[in-house]
Structures are given as C-alpha cells and as structure tokens.
C-alpha cells in the first residue's frame, strides 16, 4: 500500500453500529480511483483539521446556469484524481420514490461518468452525484436526460422544489403535495435551470411539516383543513380501552384547550382548534383532518446569512386544494414583478420584506392585511401613515 492510501484516522470510522460513510467511500474506491483520492484528501483534512477544497468553481452543462457545483482540490498534486471533483444535482422524483430499475439506470450512468459516490439525498432534496471531472459533465448530463432525468437548481436559481410523501402514503395530507410539487417543478423549468431568482418552494401536506418548509422555504405551502376534525368515537373508545390517557395525553396537551373528555365521549370545540396536529398524531385511527381541505401559504424562511434567520410567516391563511397551483403561480408572478423592480442581488424574499416593510410588500402584491398574518399588532407607535387621496392623513385604505 502506498503512503497516500493510508487512512489511519478515517479507518477508525469504519467500526461502530451506525453505517459508515468511510466504508462506502472504500467500496467505491475499489473500482474508482477518484473515490480513492477523495478518501486520501479527506484523511489529510482529518490530519490537518482543515478543508482542502478551493473556493467555488463555476462549471456546468450547456444552456443551464445551475445544477452543477464546481469543486477543485487545493492539493491536486497529491490527489490528482480529485483535482476536479464537481457534483451534479439531479432533480429527484417527487417524494423520493423510485423503482429499482430507475436507480440502476442512474447509477450505471454515474459509474461510467463519475466517482461512484452519491448522496441520497442532498439538503435541497436532489440526488447528488458526487464528484466528476469537467469533461464528463456534458456526457453524463446527456445520458441522464436520455434516461428521463434532469438537473436540479443551484446558486441563484430557483432551487429544486420538494414535497413530503403526501397523499401517496399519508392520511394527513390535506392536498396532493407531490402532484403540486411535480407540476410546479415542471412549470418553472426555466427558472430552475437559468437563474433568475434564488427562491425555494417546499410543500408539506399537514402542519407536521415533514419537509421543514416553514424553516427553509421562501414559499412554504402547508396542508390545512377548515372544517371539523373527522372523529370516530368508537376508535376513540378503543384508544382509551387500550390504555391511552386521553385527558392527560390528548386534552391537556392541546394548545387551544379546545378538547373535553368526560371518560366516555371526546368533544372538540372545532372553531377554537389551531390545527397543531397533536391529537391527530396521538390518535390517527380516531381523528382525521376535516373534509374541507387546502393549504396555508407562508412566506420568507431562510437561514441566518445575512441579517439573521427567519421563519416563514402567514400570507394566505387558507387556499382550497383545487386552487393551490393557480394561487401559487399568481402569487409568484406578483412577487417576481415586485422583486424585479426592487430586489437586490442575492436578496431573499424575507430580506426584501424586511427592507421595504411587510405593509408595503402587501400593497405591491395586492394582498389585504389580515390579523392571521401577525402574532400581535405592532407595539411601537412609529406608523408610516399614508396620504389619503384628499390630502389628509388617514388610516389604511384597505
């Protein structure tokens, strides 16, 4: 074994009960020298406690401005096989569903054109084909599209939209998250591949929010119902008989305190329900979302860079399921128009709203303010009163 193949530190991560990424790299390295050099460079990082990738890298496939993450080693003389080690983001099938043959197709292509390493999946939800050289990008891309797969978004492009499992395998999905996500992804192919704005859309079927849209998406679409929780009293009784303490574990945990259990009958004061999901999570057989279903639209989540992290906040409290796609497109076009005029480079929608003010933003996109949008009205008196058309100061024209 030559010197650079010795990986004494990484070898220690092969043991233990959790599956080992080092074993995976070694498996790939058995047939692919780039994976071997990746292991070598990673060992160097472990020895020196320092990253060994150069800054940035801008490579891609023809006609696209995103979908490939360029990487170059800063020690290419030691690890020539990872001198270029670019990543292709491949747009996953919505919901991350696969048939085994589809996986084989993708990874046969990747065996021919890349390192044989992958992430299932990356933080954006894409299939990450980890590490190849510049000259392999275009052939890999062409084989992928021949096989029916396309690249996802990166950089300043619309990021690959993602959705929870939704109606494919979840009784709580209040709209067809996968259908909507797939439709939206195809509708915005231009914006995904040719960066126009750096937004993220994520679709969760219920307020459990399994794709973390409220924390991560500029536009968070979260399933919601408007009518009464569907209740099966016999099933409630079964849970009670099976030992569930309905008073303590369900009613006392309800944030709206809208549930009452008299030992026989569970009653819910539905207009008081805040749709948190706790009671449904605890008694999935007995309680289900209502029948009038749709989604709540929230706007603006982002990580801390630049002026602090933001969670999405309520924009439209309820959109009926059948109107979600049209509402989304209309909303995006109005926000896009405003962003085109006033947005700054790299600015996420929350930052734009912070800069211009939510009220001005609502004016611009033509939405009326509603109390559901705020946790509380302002507590400072610094109000930008608008000039009325008659010249007097008045309240909001609404």
């Amino acid at each position, binding site marked *: 074994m030559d010197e650079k193949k010795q990986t004494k530190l990484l070898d220690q991560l092969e043991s233990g009960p959790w599956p080992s990424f080092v074993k995976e790299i070694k498996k790939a390295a058995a047939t692919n020298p780039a994976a071997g050099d990746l292991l070598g460079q990673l060992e160097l990082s472990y020895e020196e406690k320092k990253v060994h990738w*150069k*800054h*940035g*890298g*801008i*490579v*891609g496939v*023809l*006609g*696209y*401005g995103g979908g490939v*993450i*360029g990487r*170059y080693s800063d020690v290419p003389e030691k690890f020539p096989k990872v001198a*270029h080690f670019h990543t292709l983001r491949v747009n996953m099938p919505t919901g991350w569903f696969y048939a085994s043959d589809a996986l084989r197709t993708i990874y046969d292509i990747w065996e021919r054109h890349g390192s044989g390493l992958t992430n299932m999946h990356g933080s954006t939800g894409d299939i990450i084909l980890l590490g190849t050289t510049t000259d392999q990008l275009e052939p890999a891309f062409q084989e992928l599209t021949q096989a029916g797969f396309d690249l996802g978004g*990166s*950089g*300043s492009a619309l990021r690959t939209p993602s959705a929870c499992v939704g109606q494919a395998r979840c009784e709580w999905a209040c709209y067809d998250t996968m259908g909507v996500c797939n439709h939206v992804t195809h509708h915005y192919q*231009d914006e995904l591949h*040719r*960066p*126009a704005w750096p937004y993220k859309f994520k679709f969760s079927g219920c307020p459990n929010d399994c794709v973390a849209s409220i924390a991560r998406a500029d536009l968070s679409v979260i399933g919601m119902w408007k009518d009464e929780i569907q209740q099966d009293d016999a099933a409630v009784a079964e849970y009670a008989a099976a030992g569930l303490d309905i008073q303590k574990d369900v009613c006392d945990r309800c944030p709206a305190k809208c549930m009452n259990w008299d030992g026989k009958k569970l009653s819910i004061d539905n207009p008081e329900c805040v749709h948190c999901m706790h009671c449904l999570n605890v008694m999935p057989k007995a309680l289900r979302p209502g029948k009038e279903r749709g989604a709540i639209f929230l706007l603006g989540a982002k990580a801390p860079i630049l002026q602090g992290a933001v969670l999405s906040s309520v924009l439209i409290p309820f959109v009926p399921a059948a109107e979600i796609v049209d509402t989304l497109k209309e909303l995006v076009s109005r926000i896009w128009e405003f962003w*085109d005029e006033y*947005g700054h*480079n*790299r600015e996420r929608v929350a930052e734009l709203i912070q800069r211009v003010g939510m009220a001005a933003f609502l004016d611009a996109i033509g939405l009326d303010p509603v109390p559901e949008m705020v946790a509380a009205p302002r507590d400072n008196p610094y109000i930008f009163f608008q000039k009325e058309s008659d010249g007097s100061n008045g309240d909001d024209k609404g």
Partner: protein
Amino acid sequence: MATFEVDGRSYEVDEDGFLQDPGIWNEAVAKDFATTESVAEMTEAHWKVVNYIRNYYLQFGIAPMVRKLCKETGFKLNQIYELFPSGPAKGACKLARLPKPTGCV
C-alpha cells in the same frame, strides 16, 4: 496557475478558465476566450451583452443582476443562453473579464 493558449497567445487563467489579470482586457482577448465558451463567432448581439456587462462592472464594480442585463440589452434570458450557452455568469462574464461569480455555485 494554468494557462490558456490560442493562436500562439498565452493567458494566465484559473481552473475555470477565468482570466487572472484584470488589466489586459480588450476585444481581441474576449474573442480568444469566446472559443472556450461554445461561442463560435462574436456577433453584434454578443458584443452588446459583453460590452454592457463590462461597462457596468467598470462603473459599479459588480456584475449586473440578470434581470437588469435582460432589461438593458433587450434580450430575454433564454436568448442570452442562446448567445452564451454556458450562461451569463460563466460565459458572458468570462468574456467581459469580470471576477468569477461566487456564492453557493
């Protein structure tokens, strides 16, 4: 540092083929680099985009935002990709000799 050679001329470039020395740009240089970005011939339309980007950079020190580029040159975004198949960031900015665009790229 790598070099890019064309017709006996030699340029110092980074690994993505971006010209290192900001001082040596002229139209002949842009033409030389066009060959690396799948631009067969620099037409009037190509120059319109490159010159706009170049002048914007000289004035403001940054690359114009994509939508501004479209608005000011009158090209739609997909037309810019037709002119520069590797895109405005990689292709057009490289020919206009701007610093390599950064971010989560």
